[in-house]
Structure formats: C-alpha cells, structure tokens
C-alpha cells in the first residue's frame, strides 16, 4: 500500500524523477487551463451568453464576494492569487473520486510548495501596500519584545497550513485504502463522500487563511485611507 504519491515514479533520468505528484499536478493544471481557455475563447458581454461562461462568471463572482467579505478590502488585488490557490486545491481534491487519480495535495511536497507561495506572498502584498519600512515595523508592534514571537508565528502558521492540508487529504485516501481491505462493499463509498466534503472545506480553509494572513499584513494601509470602501461599492454596483 503506497500512501505517498512521491514514491510512485514513472520515469527517471539521472536525478530527474517524474513521480505521480508531478504528473497529477500537471493534469490538474492542464484541466484548469484548457477548460478556461475553451470557455473564454468566445466570451461575450451581450445577453445570450453560453452556459459555460455563465458557470465561470458565477464561480469568479462567488470567489470575489468571499474575498470581499473576509478581507473587507477591494477583492480585485487578491482575486488572482487566492482564486488560483482555491481552484487548484479544490480540483485536486475533488478529482480523487476518479479511480486511479492520486491527489497531488496528498503529498507533503505539494502542500509545502503551496504554503511557501503564501509565505512569500504575505510580505510581497504587505510591502506593496505599506512600503518596506511600514511592513517591517509591524514586526515590532506592540513592543520590540514581540519580535521573536512574531517571526515564530509567521513560520509556524506556514507549517500549519502545509501540514493541515496534507494531513486531511492523505488521511482521507488512507482511510479509504484501509477500509477497502476490511469492508470492501459499502463503507469506502461513505468515506469517499466524507472525503469530498473534507476536501472542499480544506480548500476553502486554505484559501481563507491565506487571505486572512495577507489581509493582516496590509491592514494598516486600509485603516489609513477609506477610499477602498468606495471602490468596493463601485465594484459591486458594476
């Protein structure tokens, strides 16, 4: 029984290994890329929009609404990053229902890479909105004694992001694999349905936590100028 998709190696050339994690990540990326390319190829703003454009528009607007409610800021800045994270994780978790598909999020390498993206994105968004000095000053608030705790908190929450997603998805597939050998008829189906629910909630939680971390790094900027709120209002009217 193999529960780590890193160890399923399809092709090896020197030290370059093509394992199942890579292959299934590429499959998810290709599905997302090709489907959005096919849909947005003939996108119109008229009355007669196609079914697929309708689907894509509602997905984007739901993500926008969630970002706006959770961060209380203009969602347009965060939509590409948070939306990509959410869609990638959701697709790789949902596609485990297909037999033979190994979720790339069931490997610690994928989740660590996603968490590293968040770890890099937090200072990038923070510096863009506050400037380098303003961002670094956040580490010594409220007192300089909090500096080590702030740094430890930054590292440990990145670790928690990676381990949380990995543990949930990997335990889901592991439980199904164990149940297949104990009670192969009915119970694996129930656990797989539970796994779909957990996969969706974990993708949501990952995206929302990434958004909360980024929004907390840009918070001071938001309190200084209240123009963002007007922008949000204009956006929602459009």
């Amino acid at each position, binding site marked *: 029984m193999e529960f780590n998709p890193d160890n399923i190696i399809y092709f090896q050339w020197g030290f370059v290994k093509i394992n199942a994690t890579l292959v299934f990540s590429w499959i998810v990326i290709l599905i997302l890329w090709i489907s959005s390319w096919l849909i947005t190829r003939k996108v119109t703003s008229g009355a007669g929009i196609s079914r697929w454009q309708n689907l894509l528009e509602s997905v984007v607007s739901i993500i926008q609404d969630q970002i706006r*409610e959770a961060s209380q800021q203009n969602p347009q800045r965060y939509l590409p990053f948070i939306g990509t994270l959410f869609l990638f994780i959701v697709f790789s978790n949902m596609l485990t229902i297909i037999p033979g598909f190994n979720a790339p999020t069931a490997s610690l390498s994928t989740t660590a890479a996603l968490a590293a993206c968040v770890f890099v994105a937090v200072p990038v968004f923070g510096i863009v909105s506050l400037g380098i000095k303003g961002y670094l000053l956040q580490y010594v608030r409220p007192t300089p004694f909090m500096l080590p705790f702030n740094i430890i908190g930054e590292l440990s929450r990145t670790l928690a992001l990676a381990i949380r997603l990995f*543990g949930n998805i990997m335990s889901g597939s592991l439980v199904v694999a164990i149940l297949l050998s104990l009670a192969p008829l009915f119970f694996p189906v129930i656990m797989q349905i539970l796994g779909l629910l957990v996969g969706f909630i974990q993708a949501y939680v990952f995206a*929302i936590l990434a958004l909360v971390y980024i929004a907390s790094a840009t918070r001071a900027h938001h309190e200084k100028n209240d123009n963002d709120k007007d922008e949000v209002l204009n956006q929602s009217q459009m």
Partner: protein
Amino acid sequence: MDSISIIGMVSIIVAGLTISIGSIGPAFGEARALAQALSAIAQQPDESGTLTRTLFVGLAMVESTAIYCFVIALIIIFANPFWDFVIKRVGG
C-alpha cells in the same frame, strides 16, 4: 526481548496513545465552538454567513493540533527513524 521487538511494541503503543490523547482536546474544543456557533445562529439568523465562515476557519485551526498528532502517529508507524537505525545496525 531484543531491541527490535521492544522498539516495535513501544512504537505501536505510543502511536495509539498519541492519536487518542491528542484527539480528546480538539474534540472538546470543537464541540464547544460548534455549540456556541449554533446558538449564535439561532439568535441571529441573518449573520449565519459570517458565523459559518468564522466557524470553519476556527475549526480548521483547532483541528490542526489533532492533525499534528495524526502525522506524528503516522511517522511513528510508517517512517520510524529509530526502527530504521536499529535495522541498519543489525543488518550492517
């Protein structure tokens, strides 16, 4: 008993203890949070969206302690470093 069977026995017992003790605390915490959120939704049904989102995020953060315990239990069972060390010493 030789050291391999001692390590195997201790690993299995400790893995069971890890997952059982480590899931008690998060279970109580999540139950309290869920009960509070339910009563809050019952009092203010209009705010159920915000409450549910905050509840999910909070539950995920509480649950991460249980998942740490789960990962430690898996490491003890499937990728035990001491086991590998002893096997290597005996084999080599």
